[in-house]
């Protein structure tokens, strides 16, 4: 008899972090090895896909061995292998998908195909078990979306960005201010010392529906800075950052609060790399305090990591969702389009 303990080996290589983790019963992180390439991509001011893929293949077995060693487990102890198969950069995803398939095949283990966004959401499990129905606000460099989860294995996007992701906007605004990539955390830091004096536009706040838009805010910010340069006007960096952040957070909080009126969630989950943002965490917490229980992923699991993929993989394992060895990367994977094979 196989023991009922779930022990998942998880791979995540969707962007510029190579990560391998071992997760017990969906909630206990036994190991979470993360190799970040930020320093490499800083040379180029953003992630260069081919460079990212090359780093992944340099790191993949190092992370695998380290994770198993830290977790003190052997292949024979494992119950499944989970892997991010999308969305993300196709060349990067392929290294993780190929590695996961190879391990699964070599050791006769089930293969669990994880949506990267589901992974971000399931990082909340490291704080407390998710209670359904739940709502998630997913904010990162590539994503800005409100995800409604009526039950454990159902994800519906009710609102998403129509143009730039919020994290992407942070990076572009930061670049305009002369900050190094990735600029998001630096903008957040500066914003905490300044005041909202520039009155940047709050896009789509009056529109019905839950879609977001950040391109107007971005253009307005860039135009203001360029205009100041032309007339040799000195702008306060901290007030610029604070004004931008106030506008971005206003929109995120406003839409989320409105969505919660229509969708009666038991929990609101804040997830994704931008979920580490101080102002967003504080403002969202006070805005929904009387409405719903807010669960924020621990800061260390907000960025891309394989632990969260293991947590989401555990949910697939429970529902016996598996992939075959012909699993391919799907760079533009979305919740609505998920097609999984049930065995």
């Amino acid at each position, binding site marked *: 008899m196989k023991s009922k303990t779930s022990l998942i080996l998880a791979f995540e290589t969707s962007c510029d972090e190579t990560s391998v983790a071992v997760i017990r019963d969906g909630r206990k992180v036994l190991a979470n090895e993360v190799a970040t*390439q930020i320093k490499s991509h800083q040379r180029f001011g953003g992630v260069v896909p081919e*460079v990212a*893929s090359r780093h992944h293949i340099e790191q993949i077995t190092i992370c*695998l061995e380290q994770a198993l060693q830290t977790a003190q487990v052997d292949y024979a102890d494992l119950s499944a292998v989970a892997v991010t198969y999308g969305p993300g950069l196709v060349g990067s995803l392929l290294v993780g998908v190929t590695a996961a*398939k190879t391990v699964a095949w070599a050791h006769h283990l089930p293969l669990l195909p994880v949506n990267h966004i589901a992974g971000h959401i399931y990082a909340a499990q490291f704080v407390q078990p998710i209670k359904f129905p739940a709502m998630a606000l997913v904010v990162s460099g590539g994503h800005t979306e409100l995800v409604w989860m009526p039950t454990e294995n159902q994800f519906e996007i009710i609102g998403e960005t129509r143009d730039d992701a919020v994290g992407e906007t942070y990076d572009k605004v930061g670049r305009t201010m002369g900050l190094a990539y990735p600029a998001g955390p630096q903008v957040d830091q500066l914003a905490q010392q300044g005041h909202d004096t520039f009155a940047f536009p709050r896009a789509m706040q009056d529109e019905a529906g839950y879609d977001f838009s950040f391109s107007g805010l971005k253009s307005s910010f860039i135009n203001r800075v360029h205009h100041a340069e032309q007339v040799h006007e000195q702008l306060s960096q901290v007030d610029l950052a604070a004004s931008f952040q106030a506008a971005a957070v206003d929109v995120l909080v406003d839409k989320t609060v409105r969505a919660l009126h229509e969708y009666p969630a038991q929990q609101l989950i804040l997830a994704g790399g931008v979920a580490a943002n101080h102002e967003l965490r504080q403002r969202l917490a006070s805005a929904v305090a009387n409405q719903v229980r807010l669960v924020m992923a621990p800061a260390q699991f907000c960025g891309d990591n394989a632990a969260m993929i293991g947590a989401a993989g555990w949910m697939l394992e429970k529902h016996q969702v598996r992939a075959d060895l012909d699993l391919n990367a799907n760079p533009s994977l979305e919740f609505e389009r998920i097609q999984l094979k049930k065995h």
Partner: protein
Amino acid sequence: MKVLALDTSNRPLTAAVLDGNQLLATTTITTERKHAAFALPLVAELLERAHLQPTDLDRVVVANGPGSYTGLRVAVTIGKVLATTLKIQLVGISSLATLALNFSDTNRLIVPLFDARNDLVFSGVYQTEPAGLKTVLPDRHVAFSRWILELQKFHDNLLFVGQDTLHFVDQIKESFPTAVVVSGPKALPQAGELGLAGQKQAVVTDVDHFVPRYLRLTQAEADWQREHPGEEQHNYVEHL
């Protein structure tokens, strides 16, 4: 010795399982481009046909480039992960040399060739000897017009091989009227040959640092290096 051999460097996908010199099962496919999806199912099927378990393998041999960047990473990832997870031996062989392995009976110098676009090619020069294949000129990424000039020193005793020789056949014939140009089935990589050759080669001692031989920097890195001479570092990836 039970050996798995795999080449995903270009459009052909070829895999084989061998027991020493005996080829147990092999398949070559030229109609599929999605090597990442199909390489492992093919490997699984071949092992099944050979009545072997993954744990029966002693060695995995992969073609490690040059070739399509994405393609190369499929076989190299499978190879290094198998070597790590099953604690078996790993061997990497040039994808160009893999083509040359098809011509063990020629006394011509073998010039395998992949089109790298914009008049650039990946190529090298090999010679068949009783002990095996010998590298005469190492693999390189080079302008075809320059490569033709460099090959002049070998006079006309050449055999060009590769699916992509079709694009260059006129230029080849102009410079080397009696050269042999092979672009048919014999210009496809054969994993059986790869598996045989791989048994005679030294195994990779540092599997973690085994990476594809791209033979070419990414455009972003080349541009950056030009603008930042002498600033190249080696710690671009940090473990958190």
